[in-house]
């Protein structure tokens, strides 16, 4: 079965491309190919001038630090017996960083995500949901990536926590010009985070362009459907809360 075909996307340094579509559209397959957790059947994935699409796992080793991924419920991708330090230092250990280097970097990234470095020794399960997601961001930052793939990384969080993590990601992006591939079905989130937007349906990109323009004037039927559904939910809330829609 073909999960996606002829997908063309470009992500620039310091910019966010949002990939939106209903469940099963193929968004996560794109994420898994871009991060080379899966090898695409054909095509090219250029990262800083290197085509990583068909690289062997050995050749990928020096490339992997440049592109990191954060998932929904990131804590489920962490070893529950690990401390925050072990979670954050794991990618560095794979990259054979020295012990003192690892210690310096983990303290620095903890500060970057707004957590006190003294908490590094705490077991990961003792952090709250929002703090665990911050640790996931810290782990991703530890290898100084040029690109982050955020696969529903903000879904399932409370509104307030979601806003805190989104603001953190926006600040980090402008400070270090990291490129983001944001996969989300939340258009309100996309509206605030994305520069460019691509709509995916049945394994293909059906509409792409500047985010604000697409949100203002959706052309493809799939885009219109997604926007209508988001607007319907918003206006139901506005109606229920008595505010004028």
């Amino acid at each position: 079965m073909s999960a996606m075909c002829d997908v063309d996307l470009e992500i620039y340094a310091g910019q966010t491309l949002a990939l939106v579509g209903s469940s099963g559209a193929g968004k996560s397959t794109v994420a898994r190919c871009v991060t080379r957790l899966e090898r695409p059947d054909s095509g090219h994935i250029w990262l800083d001038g290197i085509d990583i699409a068909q690289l062997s796992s050995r050749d990928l080793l020096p490339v992997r630090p440049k592109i990191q991924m954060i998932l929904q419920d990131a804590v489920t991708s962490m070893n529950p017996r690990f401390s925050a330090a072990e979670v954050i230092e794991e990618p560095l250990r794979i990259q054979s960083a020295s012990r003192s280097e690892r210690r310096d970097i983990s303290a620095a990234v903890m500060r970057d995500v707004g957590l006190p470095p003294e908490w590094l020794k705490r077991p990961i399960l003792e952090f709250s949901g929002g703090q665990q997601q911050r640790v996931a961001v810290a782990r991703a930052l530890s290898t100084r990536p040029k690109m982050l793939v955020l696969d529903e990384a903000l879904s399932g969080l409370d509104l307030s926590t979601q806003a805190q993590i989104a603001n953190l990601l926006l600040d980090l992006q402008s400070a270090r010009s990291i490129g983001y591939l944001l996969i989300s079905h939340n258009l309100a989130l996309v509206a605030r985070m994305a520069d460019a937007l691509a709509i995916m349906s049945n394994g293909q990109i059906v509409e792409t362009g500047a985010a604000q323009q697409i949100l203002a004037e959706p052309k493809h039927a799939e885009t219109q459907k997604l926007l209508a559904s988001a607007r319907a939910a918003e206006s139901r809330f506005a109606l229920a809360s008595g505010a004028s829609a």
Partner: protein
Amino acid sequence: MLEIRELSVTYCPASGDNVRALRNIRLEIRGSEIVGILGESGCGKSTLAHATLGLLPAHARIEQGEIFWQGRNLLGLPESELRAVRGRYISLVSQQPALSLNPVLTVGTQIGEVLRAHVPSARWERRDRVCELLGEVGFEQPNAVYDAYPHQLSGGQRQRIVIAQAVACRPALLIADEPTSKLDGLLSSEILTLLSELRKRYGTAIVVISHDPTLCAAFADRIVLMYAGRIVEAGNSAAVFARPLHPYTRALVGLMRSSTVAGVGAKISFPRIDGESPDPTTISIGCSFEPRCPERLEVCALRSPEDAVPEPSRCVSCFKYDESFPNA
């Protein structure tokens, strides 16, 4: 129909500190109403559902309180009697449909199991009844779906199977714990529509547990807001969202109004509520929202507020509305 009185629950893990999950919960659910329990993760809303169904883990301790179901206190019942209530009169739709289904049994068999446990019937009768249920939850070819295994179905379809299980015995009360949090926008509204239809047709009361105010506003008749193990505000859903009283509710509604697709126009930061929920292992003597509250008074850090009833069928736990407290 269901009445919870002064329920307090504490988790006492073998290692680590005790967690005070619920404190003095008072709640009444009436026949065929939809009640939304809204709160951040960790506020105790799932604990409340599990306590009602007698499904708390072994390290949970019920400190005090009663849960009355049709005149009987469920908390005092032996497991055998509780089992006759659970699934038959009160049922649960859990958060992760993938995890609550057995991967090696067909979905038809699994829905049939619920019937077999509560309603005596012959095997062939059960198959007909299960197919009827599959039709009710929106499957167009119930016979084909009957023989499917969970992995052959999509996330939205699996959620429908779990709902069919939950409504198989026509329960009087259905508790849905984050029924749509793993689904996208279109699928969520389909599931909510299905639940409202079932309520309309059979008069089933529904308690929906969610951290999403949009969902609660659109779906529930009445809203109960929880924060750090307590109920901070409750009332008619339209009234609560139109005129939120508790500072936490007000902050939340403000957040909702500003997180829309339209009218953003640029990449900008998100509005948020400053601070984090209190650590549930520490015992604060004051109001638990006090550290984050923009309208805090001196008294708020000193003792916790009583429920005030500023208008009929509305209650709010905040000193600002406490008439016996003149400085408020």
